[in-house]
């Protein structure tokens, strides 16, 4: 059994300078509650691995605005000019990765595989981030597995062993990240007794989830 703890208690375990995977896609399935706790705790120098940087001062954008982040690995920062500015000014290191490749790099780490072989990015500047290899008679871009110290994810339901369900487009990177980090912290909208979620609905097994936190909702939290 994992008794849910407060967001503040959960993020207290995260040191400055840690690498964090954060689930969600443009704010959908984003762990808003945990992000706000990171801001409140004044974390610094974080590396954030995520699909995008959300909008200015919203979701992951909160971490950018509050100066918590020194390095971002992501596929899209188009709706967050603050990250773009940080990239151009050199205050934030930004690694841009094609979205499908990013998903597979995270999966490879979580699944114990050696990395990704993809056609995506061949003949473009994205190829420089990886290594071009010739296998099975074809060229592929090889990208290594991507892991993190912590994964911060958002689930629709959790049982008290940490089994998780997601809803609709709030799945996205959450189940992949849950397997790819040393410590997994999950905020859930609803807590269910063990045995009441159908085994066919669980998408993340409780054995990989370390800490459960009640989510304050599934919408952006307004900064104080």
């Amino acid at each position, binding site marked *: 059994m994992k008794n849910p703890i407060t967001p503040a208690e959960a993020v207290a375990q995260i040191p400055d300078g840690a690498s964090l995977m954060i689930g969600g896609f443009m704010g*959908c399935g984003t762990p808003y509650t945990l992000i706000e706790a990171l801001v409140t705790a004044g974390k610094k120098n974080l590396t954030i691995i995520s699909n995008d940087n959300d909008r200015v001062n919203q979701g992951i954008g909160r971490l950018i605005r509050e100066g918590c982040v020194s390095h971002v690995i992501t*596929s899209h920062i*188009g709706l967050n000019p603050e990250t773009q500015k940080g990239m151009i000014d050199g205050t934030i290191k930004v690694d841009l990765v094609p*979205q499908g490749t990013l998903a597979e790099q995270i999966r490879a780490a979580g699944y114990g595989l050696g990395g990704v072989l993809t056609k995506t*990015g061949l003949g*473009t*500047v994205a190829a420089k981030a990886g290594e071009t290899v010739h296998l099975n008679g074809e060229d592929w871009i090889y990208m290594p597995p991507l892991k993190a110290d912590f994964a911060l994810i958002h689930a629709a339901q959790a049982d008290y062993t940490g089994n998780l369900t997601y809803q609709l487009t709030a799945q996205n990177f959450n189940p*992949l990240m849950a397997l790819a980090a040393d410590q997994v912290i999950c905020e859930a909208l609803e807590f269910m007794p063990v045995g009441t979620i159908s085994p066919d609905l669980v998408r993340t097994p409780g054995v990989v989830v370390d800490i459960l936190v009640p989510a304050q909702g*599934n919408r952006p939290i307004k900064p104080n």
Partner: protein
Amino acid sequence: MEYQEIIQRRTARELRPHTLVNLGIGLPTGVAHYVKHEDGVLFQSENGIIGMGGRPPAGAENPYLTDAGGNCVTAVPGAMSLDSALSFGLIRRHVDTCVLGGLEVDETGRLANWMVPGKIVPGMGGAMDLVANAKRIIVAMQHIAKGQPKIVPKCTLPLTADRRIDLIVTDLAVIEPTEEGLVLREYAPGISVEDIIDKTSARLIIPDVVTEMPIAAK
């Protein structure tokens, strides 16, 4: 007719019944308005749904059901949710047609649409996966931006993929990139072939038959 509507109506005719289609954010998203439900075209949104529908009525938005821009959408009957790995598995192997905007398309049919170095660095998002892998790529864009032709001899911006895209649909013309070069297929109503040549900095191949764009409702 607004330029967006011309492009969207014409692009809609390219979508094949009972196939999976990915529409990029912005102008391409609007293509869905001109696709009839009975054609059975299924829209995939790379953030994690097959069977994406239009905007929900006010008050019926659910934060767990969004498009790739984070805006609330609906699901059609027979929809399915996906994680990002499966979503891009489908993009690399099973998406039939992808419609995206463009910054530049050149005479070899190469597309640049994801960054302007030193100016705009949005990131490629899913665009590189889509353009490198989807079966058919349609670039839906204005013919001219800020007075400058977007169909150029050679892309000056970083490429999205080293792949010849399949069709360019603009507010002025439909152009097919081929091994021989860019072939003009259609002109928009009221636009002459000379107008198009004039507003295209790339060399265009003009075949004997160039037809008017069919943009009325099907």
